[in-house]
């Protein structure tokens, strides 16, 4: 079975632009979480979606938004990109969500903002 997939694998943008990252969860999983990982740090929680509703949100500005589709895939959108948004963006899926459940991660999208 396929694991969590993310696209694209790498992306280069310039300041002020907007970016959309995509994630497909493991088949049967209904929850998707997004994390930002800056170089040298652990992943930081951005938000989790379950059944197309935002369940929880981390300490990120409104420039970060996401949505979940009926097939449970998800898109992360970041507007007005800043240099500090350069990071690895990880998507994780789980059966029904909640932090106590195992979250299975994808390989991430590496975003570079110039």
């Amino acid at each position: 079975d396929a694991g969590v997939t993310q696209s694209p694998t790498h992306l280069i943008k310039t300041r002020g632009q907007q970016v959309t990252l995509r994630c497909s969860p493991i088949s049967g999983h209904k929850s998707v979480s997004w994390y930002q990982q800056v170089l040298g740090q652990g992943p930081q929680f951005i938000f989790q979606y379950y059944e197309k509703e935002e369940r929880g949100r981390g300490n990120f500005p409104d420039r970060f938004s996401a949505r979940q589709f009926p097939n449970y895939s998800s898109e992360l959108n970041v507007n007005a990109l800043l240099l500090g948004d350069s990071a690895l963006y990880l998507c994780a899926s789980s059966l029904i969500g909640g932090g106590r459940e195992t979250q299975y991660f994808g390989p991430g999208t590496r975003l570079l903002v110039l």
Partner: protein
Amino acid sequence: KDQVFQPSTVASSEGAVVEIFCNHSVSNAYNFFWYLHFPGCAPRLLVKGSKPSQQGRYNMTYERFSSSLLILQVREADAAVYYCAHCPGSGNTGKLIFGQGTTLQVKP
């Protein structure tokens, strides 16, 4: 502030048992999660729980505010970054709090 702490680097020799320690200041924390991350690959869950657990060569100890990951018979191929993570509060938000990661160095 909810935080998870782990050493930045741990060194070991092949065949040894290596211990990576983690502690946290997360309120009402429940499960510990230990992930393995090779650069360019998806982080992979090794072991998790709210009590001592074992999965193959990976053992997890558990105390309310700390956990250790023990890797038995360490190999060069185990050289990677290991993350400790915690689920704060009731867990309903889906949030995991990660440590900064521990780089395991293995000497032949």
